[in-house]
């Protein structure tokens, strides 16, 4: 049975129809499925159906030792793998009371922020691809490859880094990385001006984004949406500032906030955030302390004391929290991953009601979804 909307008798009954958007659809950035009930070009109901890339990360957490779970963390949100690994290792360090050397914390901040930049660049390219502009993707990937070169030299992989270890990082940065990062920051700064001239000030883009897909701060709160979504609704919530973890408290940076709550506000938040990440990277590189990069006393077989603990980080898409429960054994009792895309997507049904389909796709793109991050 298909639902029908009420219409005046003069119109005659116009029926709604049900349309599958996804799992194989270029606008859903992966294998998200949205069950659309359409009234012509207007959305009566858009019900996201996740689960098409559920990969049992939480079950796998209960099947391997604390350290063996590390490669999984980088495959949940593969675009900001560093921040996800950071949350997990920091949670285990908190549970096992391991003190991380300062140099390792600085390296974590530098690599996390580089990763945030590369993640936002992919979003930038893919979002504009959704809106119908292909060229920005080529510029964004050009910049992104420079970051990947740096991280690949350091970690050995391009995307799914497994660089952080429980107690530090797996190898020290070399002079080439430090110099390369400095060069990259210098190269990247002027690019934002180019992006602004090329894309942000474009009339077509503004017409497609301004006033489209409004999400209020209250809606964000009721659905637990975080990251650029809540900051684009005027709430300066960023885990790096609210609950400063690692050494983020030592840096001078701002949290970009735009109160409009529309797609353009979320777009601007991410663009500004990239510039702020550069600021953090610059400060961290300048103040990089000497010392070891691995805690001296990490036991070979880790057995955190029984109990639970949480650790939250600001990933590229919002608040990512790990809740680990230990029963004192070498295998976790439970690893709960609270992922930002899950909560950010859950408000889509309410936010997209009554929108035009093309505008709803702009809204979905501005949420910056990574589908395995929803499904885990």
């Amino acid at each position: 049975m298909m639902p029908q909307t009420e219409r005046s008798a003069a119109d005659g009954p116009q029926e709604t129809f049900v349309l599958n958007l996804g799992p194989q659809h270029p606008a859903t950035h992966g294998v998200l499925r949205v069950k659309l009930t359409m009234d012509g070009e207007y959305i009566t109901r858009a019900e996201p159906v996740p689960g098409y890339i559920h990969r049992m990360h939480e079950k796998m957490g209960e099947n391997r030792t604390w350290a063996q779970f590390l490669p999984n963390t980088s495959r949940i949100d593969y675009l900001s793998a560093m921040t996800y690994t950071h949350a997990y290792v920091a949670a285990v360090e908190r549970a096992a009371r391991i003190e991380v050397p300062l140099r390792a914390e600085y390296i974590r901040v530098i690599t996390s922020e580089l990763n945030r930049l590369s993640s936002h660049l992919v979003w930038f390219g893919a979002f504009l691809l959704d809106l119908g502009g292909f060229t920005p993707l080529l510029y964004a990937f050009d910049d992104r490859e420079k970051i990947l070169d740096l991280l690949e030299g350091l970690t050995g992989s391009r995307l799914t880094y497994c660089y952080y270890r429980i107690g530090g990082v797996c190898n020290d940065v070399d002079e080439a990385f430090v110099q390369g990062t400095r060069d990259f920051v210098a190269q990247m700064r002027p690019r934002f001006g180019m992006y602004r001239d090329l894309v942000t000030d474009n009339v077509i883009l503004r017409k497609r984004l301004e006033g489209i897909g409004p999400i209020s701060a209250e809606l964000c709160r009721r659905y637990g949406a975080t990251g650029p979504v809540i900051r684009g609704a005027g709430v300066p919530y960023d885990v790096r500032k609210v609950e400063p973890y690692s050494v983020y408290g030592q840096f001078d940076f701002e949290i970009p906030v735009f109160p409009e709550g529309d797609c353009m506000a979320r777009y601007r938040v991410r663009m500004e955030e990239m510039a702020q990440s550069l600021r953090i990277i610059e400060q961290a590189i300048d103040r990089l302390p000497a010392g070891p990069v691995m805690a001296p006393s990490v036991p070979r077989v880790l057995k955190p004391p029984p109990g639970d603990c949480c650790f939250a980080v600001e990933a590229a898409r919002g608040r990512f929290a790990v809740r680990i429960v230990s029963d004192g054994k070498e295998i976790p009792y439970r690893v709960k991953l609270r992922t930002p895309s899950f909560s950010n997507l859950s408000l889509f049904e309410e936010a997209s009601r009554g929108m035009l389909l093309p505008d709803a796709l702009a809204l979905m793109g501005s949420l910056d979804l990574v589908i395995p991050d929803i499904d885990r």
Partner: protein
Amino acid sequence: MEPQTELDCSPLVRFAALDDLLALGRANSLWPLTFGLACCAIEMMAAGASRFDLSRFGAEVFRASPRQADVMIVAGTINKKMAAAVKTLYDQMPEPKWVIAMGNCAISGGPFVFPGQYAVVEGVDKLFPVDVFVPGCPPRPEALIEGILELEKKITGRRRWPVVKPQ
């Protein structure tokens, strides 16, 4: 109806020279299906974007519709909820069609295989035949390009591009 993945799909008339010509044309303008599943999809995007530039080999026209696509690049993990959709998309691609399994998940289930796993299909070749396997987790864009060149070799019977030998 039984799965028919070993059908003889050859055309009514065949001319050796014409077949070669068609194969050459097909091999150098492979249109992949836009079918990003997981991590590997980002590397697939990177292969199509600047620096790696898949269009040098004629395979950059990513089509959203299976009817217009020649090659399905299965880039990522297939789970049991997704398997039916993947099979549907394979069915909807017209002949001649090829499949590249990109990444360890598409090859064998990759890191998501453990005793008692409940969600992952352990390799896309469990669902339909695969022509080229590209290993890696995820494979580098160069590896995907090499996979496409291997597919060209499979279609035309010879390799047009030089093979880079490790020094």
